């Protein structure tokens, strides 16, 4: 299919546009984009899970863990130099999330549908409860974090925000491009097969549980990195990152974007943050209703997500 082959060039074009264009954006817009990119990474992981036929109502677990891991390391283990680095923190967050994903994956890979959703929700709520109990980590108030360097290079004050913005743009590009390649690999192509009919996959000689497990770990790593980025952008973390409504929001965004393309989650995340911010501004008393109606409209009229607009146009062209 020609449309799909254009994904990688389009992604690298988008990378250049965002990198250069971002420089001219006001600070608040850059921050909003970082937030959207960070959350977009989490939703990207969800896209992979959804393609495998699984929806997690507990990605907040890894999102929160990614945010806390990096910061706790600098706080408790005292690696102030390494752990005030804008690149090291999200990556470390991703690694820690991936390790937990590996461990929990042994269990969760056996679950499907609503039970998978609920068990992952339970795990994220347990983390939430543990963090609320930990006064050393600030309990529900959380604590502030900051970064001073990027890949070891000290950042001057005026460059801090753009540096983080550029980093998140780059990480999103790498993640989407790699995931795009992965989805085209043998293992990646097994994901929809698992969703459609597990028995057939097993008869073909592949292990369903292995496919689910691998994809689950990838989603966890993405959520961990995303959490790390958001933590740096906000400058503050607290246990709400693991609360079930946070996870619910990721599923919301995933549905908004659809699973048609690796770019969909990122675009949906951008749109979602923007709608939410506009709703806060223009409907401070009814912003939830605006979000609810948006979600209903998307489900009713664009069941395959916003991406289907692009697909339809590509097909018509």
């Amino acid at each position: 299919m020609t449309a799909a082959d254009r994904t990688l060039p389009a992604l690298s074009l988008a990378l250049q546009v965002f990198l250069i264009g971002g420089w001219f954006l006001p600070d608040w817009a850059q921050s909003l984009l970082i937030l959207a990119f960070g959350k977009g990474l989490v939703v990207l992981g969800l896209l992979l899970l959804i393609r495998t036929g699984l929806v997690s109502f507990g990605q907040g677990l890894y999102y929160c863990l990614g945010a806390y891991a990096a910061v706790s390391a600098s706080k408790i283990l005292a690696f102030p130099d390494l752990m005030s680095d804008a690149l090291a923190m999200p990556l470390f967050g991703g690694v820690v999330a991936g390790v937990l994903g590996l461990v929990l994956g042994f269990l969760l890979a056996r679950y499907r549908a609503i039970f998978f959703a609920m068990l992952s929700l339970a795990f994220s709520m347990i983390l939430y409860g543990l963090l609320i109990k930990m006064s050393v980590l600030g309990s529900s108030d959380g604590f502030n974090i900051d970064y001073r360097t990027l890949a070891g290079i000290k950042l001057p004050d005026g460059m801090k925000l753009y540096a983080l913005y550029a980093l998140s743009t780059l990480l999103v590009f790498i993640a989407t491009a790699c995931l795009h390649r992965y989805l085209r690999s043998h293992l990646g192509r097994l994901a929809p097969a698992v969703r459609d009919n597990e028995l057939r996959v097993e008869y073909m000689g592949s292990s369903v549980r292995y496919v689910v497990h691998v994809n689950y770990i990838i989603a966890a790593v993405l959520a961990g990195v995303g959490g790390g980025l958001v933590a740096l952008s906000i400058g503050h973390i607290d246990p709400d990152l693991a609360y079930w409504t946070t996870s619910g929001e990721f599923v919301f965004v995933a549905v908004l974007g659809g699973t048609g393309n690796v770019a969909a989650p990122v675009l949906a995340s951008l749109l979602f943050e923007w709608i939410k911010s506009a709703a806060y501004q223009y409907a401070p008393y009814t912003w939830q209703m605006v979000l609810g109606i948006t979600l209903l409209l998307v489900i009713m009229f664009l069941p395959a997500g916003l991406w289907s607009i692009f697909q339809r146009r590509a097909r018509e062209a």
Partner: protein
Amino acid sequence: MNTKLPRQLGFWSATILVLASAFGAVSAAAQENPVKIGAVTFLSGAAAGPFGVPARNGAEIIVEAMNAGQLPAPYTAKGLGGAPVQLAFTDEAGGTTKQVNEYRNLVQRDNVDMVIGYISSGDCLAVAPLADELKKLTVFFDCGTPRIFEDASYKYLFRTGATATMDSVAAALYVTELKPSLKKYAGINQNYSWGQDSWNDFEAAMKVLKPGVEAATSQMPKLLAGQYGAEISTLLTSHADVVHTSFWGGDAEALILQGAPRGLFQKSTVVMTAGEPTLVRLGSQVPDGTVIGARGPFDVFAPDTELNRWFRKAYEDRYGVVPSYPAYKMAQAILGVKSAWEKAQAANDGKRPSEDQVIAAFEHLSFEGPGGKVEMALGKGHQAMQGTAYGIAKNAGGKITMVNVKTYPATKVTPPDGVKSDEWIKSGFKAGK
């Protein structure tokens, strides 16, 4: 079946939404002359009723009267030194991630001249460093965590309300004076920072004031749990003389409604450190003998000044209820800004002061609020110091009066500048008077 029409509808409704918002963003571009204040308080969620809305109401009353030049002395000048004030409200609900971005939007997109707000300590902690980063005058009016100015110092940030340490310390002082022979005490607090910190401070203060008296039980139900059957049973079986609670809003009301019929409030003296809004809301249902605090000299504890009389009357006339402490604290924050602004303007030959001039005037400022005198004495002149009071609710056939009211001067319940609250309590309130 025709699927094309709904799809088109979906596409167009999305497009219209996009255009509408983009258009709105353009039309909201700034107007220069008035002072635009971004006001952030809970407009939705559980904290809206007890805190957010009274605070919003308080802001509206003060700002309208201020713009019309109808405030009592010393606030008779119109607006801020003559410049009218515009309030733009933002909902504080949605968590710190949301709030940090909304703060940025207020400052950088909507170009407000200053931000006043924040009830949740988590939001305050998250927003604090940004105030200095974006160099925007920001005033916290309510949040209680002492960590803000004890762990860091800020140039652009002020807090016109006292910290929560005061509430617990004063509560401990009050109950030990009320019940010199108390043997056991217990606590029921919400399981999040506010409840945990309140209990820790109270327990630490009790250890100093009554060494050897132990806590019988510390119950920590989930925030907004609403059901306290088992907790009330354990409190009843603990036979504690005093029960400490920092419950607020719906949780505080539920605790009263479920605890009163089972005799909790007769059996133990219950201290509600943030009980005053409950008094306003639940009125006649508050059990006789409950010890009530208002997190400062507000509402029932407010002094009989002209400003206070005016504020209560204006608020009651408009909203039909008495103002509870969040309304007082919001009024206090705005009046603090007004004092600083006009002091700076006077020093600037009557011309509109710059932000830096307002900040210089705000530091170590002493001003009058409806709850009495406020001194910006802590945190290098950025954190307010104010006394507080506790009293017992006397319920005579549904009519509530406060008896046995005791006021505590700020110096007795607040650590001196530069000393951390928890260390100050543990040291036996050393260096306090």
